[in-house]
């Protein structure tokens, strides 16, 4: 239990996907201009991360490791993620149209979101069990959503700011990310 909590906290704040592992930067800078979008994106990513982690962890622990073909993980994970995203999109479309309208446009983007492949690879690299993988994926997703929301809040405020012309937009977003990462250093060693 303690171990799971450690994994979870580590993923949410200490080894945050975006701020310390630099994963999922495209949506972090691309979808953080409006808060509502950021929230939807965060939820969608968390969802896919969870499902992907459970399935890839099962594949890793029960197929790849016993048959000593761990080197195949990249090909297999990316295929699993790509098809999962398709299936999730299909299910959401059939069952919950409101959710689909909210998350729909973000789902295809997630296939190439390195945070999703990243978390599955981290899980394998750390030799996590299925349960541990689930917890770490949940933590990573929540951490990602958290900084995405913080970032979008800040960027909405930055829109009103009088920053130098050449700083506006992406450069100042990078600077914000830098300072945010600097602030999060305070959590170092918490686990």
């Amino acid at each position: 239990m303690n171990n799971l909590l450690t994994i979870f906290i580590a993923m949410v704040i200490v080894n945050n996907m975006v701020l310390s592992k630099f994963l999922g930067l495209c949506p972090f800078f691309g979808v953080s201009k409006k808060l509502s979008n950021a929230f939807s994106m965060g939820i969608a990513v968390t969802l896919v991360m969870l499902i992907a982690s459970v399935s890839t962890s099962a594949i890793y622990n029960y197929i790849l490791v016993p048959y000593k073909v761990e080197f195949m993980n990249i090909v297999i994970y990316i295929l699993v993620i790509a098809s999962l995203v398709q299936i999730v999109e299909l299910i959401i479309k059939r069952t919950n149209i409101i959710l689909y309208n909210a998350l729909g446009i973000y789902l295809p983007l997630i296939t190439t979101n390195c945070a999703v492949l990243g978390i599955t690879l981290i899980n394998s690299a750390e030799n996590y069990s299925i349960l541990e993988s689930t917890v770490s994926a949940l933590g990573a997703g929540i951490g990602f959503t958290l900084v995405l929301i913080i970032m979008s809040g800040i960027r909405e405020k930055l829109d009103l700011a009088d920053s130098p012309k050449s700083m506006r937009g992406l450069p100042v977003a990078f600077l914000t990310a830098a300072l945010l990462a600097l602030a999060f250093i305070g959590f170092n060693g918490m686990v």
Partner: protein
Amino acid sequence: MEKDNILISHAPHIWRGFSTSKVMYIVVAALLFPTAAGIYFFGYSAIYIILASIITAVLTEFVIKKLRKKKFIMDGSAVITGLLLALILPPGMPLWMVVLGAFFSIAVVKEAFGGLGYNIFNPALAGRAFLSVCFPKEMTTWVLPPYFNYDAVTGATPLSESFVYTDKLSLYKDLFFGNIGGSLGETSAMLILIGAAVLFIFRIIDWKIPAFYIGTVALGSLLMGKDVLFQVLAGGLMIGAFFMATDYVTSPVTGNGRIIFGVGVGVLTVLIRNFSNMPEGVCFSILIMNAFTPLIDKYVKVKPFGFQKKKKNA
């Protein structure tokens, strides 16, 4: 009355005259109390650090404003940033590092975002965080007040684990008056409180942030089974609560928002002090809550006059 002289302006046509620079200089005046403590306890090196920091801050702002072809207003905000930064640095800090930190504070944290009013993070704190990542060794080397130990030896700050004390009462006394290792301006709780009183008298700061911040830390330390009085007096909590967390630009604007902010910083400080590698959590917890400020401001609004009535009717 000549027609050419007649001016047009928006209502209201009278102004209280309590300008930004006035606010800033009152804060500077209030900061002079902890500054005096720093100079008294740490001597000349403190003066050099303070001067280096302030001059760099003001110069950097001046140069950037000129580069951007904007008007440079000596509104005192750069002075505050410089002074605050100096007050939260260790007294033995090499001057060129101080200069670098002050430059980072103003150039990257403040002016790159558009200058006064637009920065997201507290410049002085971010400058300190920058320095503590760059020079972890220098940032954790504490000179003990020479008046208490004539050779300027290095020692531990109260919050670091290797700090040892024998008598609790004299420890509290030292913490309160400032005769203890630590950053330049954070050691004397008494003089910080006097400075804070100045801010309250001129109604510069709202009581909510410091009260809820210190309250949360006290409560948290109690729950953690720590010495509450010690946790409150030691480290940068006092100066952080009254001078950093209350920074207008980087804290929420509404009363409820400020309460949330204060509690948030308090919880983070307790967490970082007790669970993370950092002996001190004030700087980072305020920075983290700074990042939440836009969100708090967005969701914690003031209920407009007559708002609830409308809801009942609807």
